[in-house]
């Protein structure tokens, strides 16, 4: 059994330690908000936080998680109240939406470190997340908006 803390809850899973965290989240724990896109850390659709840091769960063996706290899109807020979620809604960022859990988790991690990111900061933090629908321009605008919302704007 492997102990995990996911979205603030302690849990145990009986899986192969080599199984990527992505599949533990999706198939074992039923947290399907985190998506599979490439399996090689190339697209960012599987982005979750480990102790607040964005990681690609498709290449992270569950055994490597240890005591670190896992946060998925489902745990970002219980009511879409995270500033990134609010900004995403305000600007209607998603199209197909498939990449957006990963985009939002990357953006939330960026804002946790950098309260007022520049476009260059955003490019650096977000270039690992592919959006095939091409919502990038809105993602950038929404990150700036989320930064405003976070500081009470």
């Amino acid at each position, binding site marked *: 059994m492997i102990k995990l803390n996911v979205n603030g809850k302690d849990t145990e899973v009986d*899986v192969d330690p080599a199984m990527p965290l992505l*599949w533990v989240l999706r*198939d074992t724990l039923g947290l*399907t*908000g985190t998506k599979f896109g490439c399996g090689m850390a190339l697209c960012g659709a599987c982005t979750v936080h480990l102790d607040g840091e964005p990681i690609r769960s498709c290449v992270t063996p569950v055994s490597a998680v240890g005591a670190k706290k896992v946060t998925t899109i489902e745990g970002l807020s219980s009511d879409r109240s995270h500033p990134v979620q609010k900004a995403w809604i305000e600007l*209607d960022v998603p199209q*197909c*939406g498939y990449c957006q859990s990963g985009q939002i988790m990357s953006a939330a991690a960026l804002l946790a470190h950098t309260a007022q990111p520049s476009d260059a900061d955003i490019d650096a933090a977000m270039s690992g997340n592919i959006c095939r629908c*091409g919502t990038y321009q809105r993602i950038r605008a929404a990150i700036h908006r989320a930064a405003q919302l976070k500081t009470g704007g």
Partner: protein
Amino acid sequence: MSLDRRDFLKSSACLSGGLIIALHLPGCSKPARGPGEHKTIAANSWLRIGTDNSITFLCDRSEMGQGVYTALPTLLAEELGVTLERIHVDFAPAGDEYKNNLLGAQITGASSSVRDAWQKLRTAGAQARSMLVSVAAKDWGISPANCKVENGFVVSPYGKRVSFGECAEAAAKLPLPKNVKLTEAGNFRLIGTSIRRLDTPLKVNGSAQYGIDVRLPDMLYAALAQPPALGGKALSFDDSKARTMPGVKAVVQTSSGIAVIASSWWQARQARDALAIKWDDGPNASLNDGVILRGLQHAAGAAQSARKDGDVDAAIKSAAKVVKAEYQLPLLAHATLEPQNCTAEVRADGCDIYVPTQVQQVAQLAAAGAAGLKPEQVRVHTTFLGGGFGRRLDVDFIPAAVEASKAVGKPVKLLWTREDDTTHDVYRPPAFDTAVGAFDQGGKLIAWKLHLVGPSPTARMFPAVVEKSIDPFAIEAAANYPYDVPNVSVEYLRHEIGINVGFWRSVSHSLNCFVAESFMDELAASAGQDPVQFRRTLLAKQPRYLRALGLATQEARYGAAPKGHFQGVAVMEGYDTYMAQVAEISLDNGKVKVHRIVCAVDCGQVVNRDIVTAQVEGSIIFGLTATLWGEINIQRGRVQQTNFNTYRLLRMNEIPRIDVFILDSSAAPGGIGEPATALVAPAVCNAIHAASGKRLRSLPLARHNFA
């Protein structure tokens, strides 16, 4: 294009005549109810009204990002007199009543959802409103004309109110009203505004259900080993190792490969990779890029005429100057971010499939065939689609899921890897096209001739269409050549290449607009004219093109680019939408940097402004990705690209600024999900010509070391 589209409809195998209103009246979907339970009444095929005054729209088009989940109920809400938020959206099942009148079956494609729904759903909404009002008016003993509707209530002139829910059951028994009056454009409350998308809240917290997210009791997971060469098949396989691996429940030979079924998908995939399979590479064993290109270059046979004005060959013979060029375009993958998948539950008496599909009825037929059932025994549950772009007009990923479920007697979710998805796509057709233009002594363009060669997805998927006519989906942005030239010939020679090609966002517009709008620039250069002025002169009789070109060039400050920046333009009509784009680039050590793309759009009456803008923004990114890097290569019948490291997609740090300008128009709505894709390549290549004098007649730019 509209003439060709009608021809397509006439010859379509699955077309039935007449407009579908197909209201199922009277109808009550839940006959039994206990005390305190709500009852839901079917007002028509799309509308369910609950006795609790809930309103549900059965969305009969697939939501793949293009916004039907919001735009279609907007049409109903406008006529029902309710706010959009009052409407709950569910996806409709497969059914003839959901047929797309522009395409002949229940299909989400060809940027047709709003065009098809425009009259149909507003009429359905107006009829339902009329019937609800009639019930209330009769009850009150007043004329319906004196009643109005207000966010889910019928209201009398004296302030009496009764909810839609209370009227619905009686309303459903009334005859369908004829000649209902639709709201006039000047009185639209919702249409033409930028109402927030209804699906956004589901897409910011992980709750939107895509095909990959389906979970059923006792469900197993499958990974599929498909032939490495397209068109190959398994000769034999050894699964002795795979069967001993953790979680593995079964190994099943399906019609499209060997499926390993396990308790989790990761286990299934690990075991799939442990299969030892002997493959027969089949007919494509020696197919490669060179073979495909030479086949297209030397394709023999009679081309079909798509357009013939005057006598183009005589005009060319008599011309003072003739310009000729050959253009070539590569295969492209769709690369939907959600890999292909299907969840199937086969029982003795029926089958349920849960699938991200653009073709519910074709999916139903495919599943029925695989399960050995009748189509009506298959229920299709459409999920959200993690991208479509035409990929999910094909159903090649469905039978294996059904066969796997049937073999193990349990629900099975079959999911492809990214590598499966890239190497087993149905690719955008390649093309090898020849363009000829001719000028008279006075420098007037007197002849335009396009000879298009390529394989046809239509021929594979809708063979009846191409038996009777030229493939309408091969000659877009070509047959509708808008320039005022007396002698025009456009012809298409279908030449198959041995592997399956499919419909890719904007379909043949993405091929033909590149050729036509690049070659127009070549002719402008040959005539010594500015490319925009050259176009303007020849578009004098085309007000919608002219207006779009005028707005795009104005907003882009055409002719006044910053120092070191160069501009290129393209115009196009596709799906009844008129567009012009201006790309602004610079060259840095020979590499192109796209700074800005301006797009002016006349898509007729807009339903949701912000969705129109978003679709154009996204289409431009899609088109630019293909322009810079898009190319699928074949060696020994095998696709060489596998994942996003070899099939590169545009990222945040690589995007240009995109500005979209929407022209006011009272014309009927045009399609918006696709067309902007097609103008990017010619606009960018025309800008490269302006910058460097180099004319690029093939893509992607990476092939020319420009990207």
